[in-house]
């Protein structure tokens, strides 16, 4: 396959970026999207050009590092996959593909396609945890949790924090991410003691980072590689109302 690329190049956080054209020949349909970029970068390095910076780590769809906005959609055209799990067989010979970084004020561009997602880390640090004494883990059966409850919490916990929700949202809102992180603890007994503090702190931090607010378009959930459901946002709203109206 021959692929034409329009890739966002930006030297650093301050520099002005632009879309640059590249041609990649000898692309195998079995290559992943990132492997196609590896081939292009090899070529650029051989020519003495600056290779394209992009985030990646596990390349198994579980770490949440890769973050490419491909032809107008985060993680490209397939549902339920990250960029590393997208293969070139999803494209046709001769296609022109536009590749941009996640666009959000709260996600400043580091370089090229790599963005700084530490806003997510600060949101987690503000309250996305439970405080427990150190020592041996207690026996799991001491704390009975219903299967359905556990499954629901697990569905929320499946969020890998890649930021595709923010990238897809027309308002660059982080509510799907934050709501998943609120929900995974709100659904379990371990999360209860700090539930009210948690949701207040995390929503405050989310607002302070400059993310937009949710208008319920559902784009986040549709593009989420882990299929995090919109019901998480409704749950976060309930938790937030209850913390504000009923909390101390």
């Amino acid at each position, binding site marked *: 396959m021959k692929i034409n690329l*329009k890739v*966002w190049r930006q030297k650093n956080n301050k520099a002005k970026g632009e*879309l640059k054209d590249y041609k990649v020949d000898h692309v195998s349909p079995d290559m992943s999207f990132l492997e196609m970029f590896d081939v292009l970068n090899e070529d650029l390095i051989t020519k003495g050009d600056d290779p394209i910076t992009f985030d990646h780590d596990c390349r198994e769809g579980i770490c949440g590092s890769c973050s490419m*906005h491909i*032809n*107008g*959609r985060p993680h490209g*055209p397939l549902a339920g996959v990250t960029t590393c799990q997208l293969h070139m067989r999803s494209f046709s010979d001769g296609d022109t593909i*536009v590749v*941009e970084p996640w*666009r*959000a*004020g*709260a996600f400043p561009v580091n370089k090229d396609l790599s963005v700084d997602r530490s806003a997510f880390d600060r949101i987690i640090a503000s309250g996305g945890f439970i405080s427990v004494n150190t020592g041996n883990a207690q026996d799991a059966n001491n704390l009975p949790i219903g299967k359905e409850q556990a499954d629901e919490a697990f569905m929320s916990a499946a969020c890998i924090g890649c930021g595709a929700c923010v990238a*897809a949202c*027309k*308002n*660059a*809102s982080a*509510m799907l991410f934050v709501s998943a992180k609120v929900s995974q603890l709100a659904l379990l007994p371990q999360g209860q003691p700090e539930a009210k503090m948690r949701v207040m702190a995390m*929503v*405050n931090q*989310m*607002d302070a980072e*400059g*993310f*937009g*607010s*949710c*208008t*319920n*378009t*559902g*784009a986040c959930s*549709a*593009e989420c590689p882990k299929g995090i459901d*919109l*019901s998480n*946002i*409704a*749950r*976060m*709203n*309930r938790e*937030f*109302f209850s913390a*504000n*109206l009923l909390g101390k």
Partner: protein
Amino acid sequence: MNWISTFLKSSIGKKLLMGLTGLFLCTFLIVHLTGNLQLLKHDGGLAFNTYAVFMTTNPLIKFVSYGLYAIILFHAFWGLYLVAQNRKARPVQYAAYDGKANSKWSSRWMGVLGTIILAFLVLHMWNFWAQYKFGTVPYTQYERNLATGEVSFSPFTGEIKGKMEKFVDNQSGLEITIVKDLYIVVADGFKAGWLVLIYIISMAALSFHLVHGFSSAFQTLGVNNKKYNALIQNIGVGVFGIIIPILFAIMPVYFLFLN
């Protein structure tokens, strides 16, 4: 009390205000539609004109109507403010953005649809509310035969106190109503095809606005439960997206062809 302002200034508090005012306006639409459907009665406008007098003289309704104006303005301008805020959250736009791949058109264009509705409301208030309140509106005398229920009407040229006088003439068995005739203002107004077209387009905008807005308000309120989601969705699309805008749109079309 500081917690209230902190709560309402948060991103979730801000959208709660949008959702609550939006749902209030949905209930208003039902009341407004029920009243306006009196226009379609074949009584020369007697029922509609009586209703118009009630709506503009009843103290409780007057009180609620001022609240309504305030809420309409708040919902409109708060919405525009939030659109502007949300645009700031993405200072650099995408070169390629495929919105239709992951969300419905109506959900992405709420601000534009709402602005069309706001512009329509200004026109609508000018067409009827301002004419009724400040313009020269003729009076009509209706004579309803109490035995048969038949209604006849003719222009009234004298003077009465207030907007309506109603009495029964026992000799002839007629109930006589002399009333400020908003019906004729409506009927005359919709002789203009271009105005009817604007009204139809505005109702289409209202339809798309509510297809997203009604169910979205429930999501914002935290109501998202598989038990009720289908019901909320169906009411949002069926009642507020289809039935109500179509019934509203029928009125100008009815008068266009009646004339």
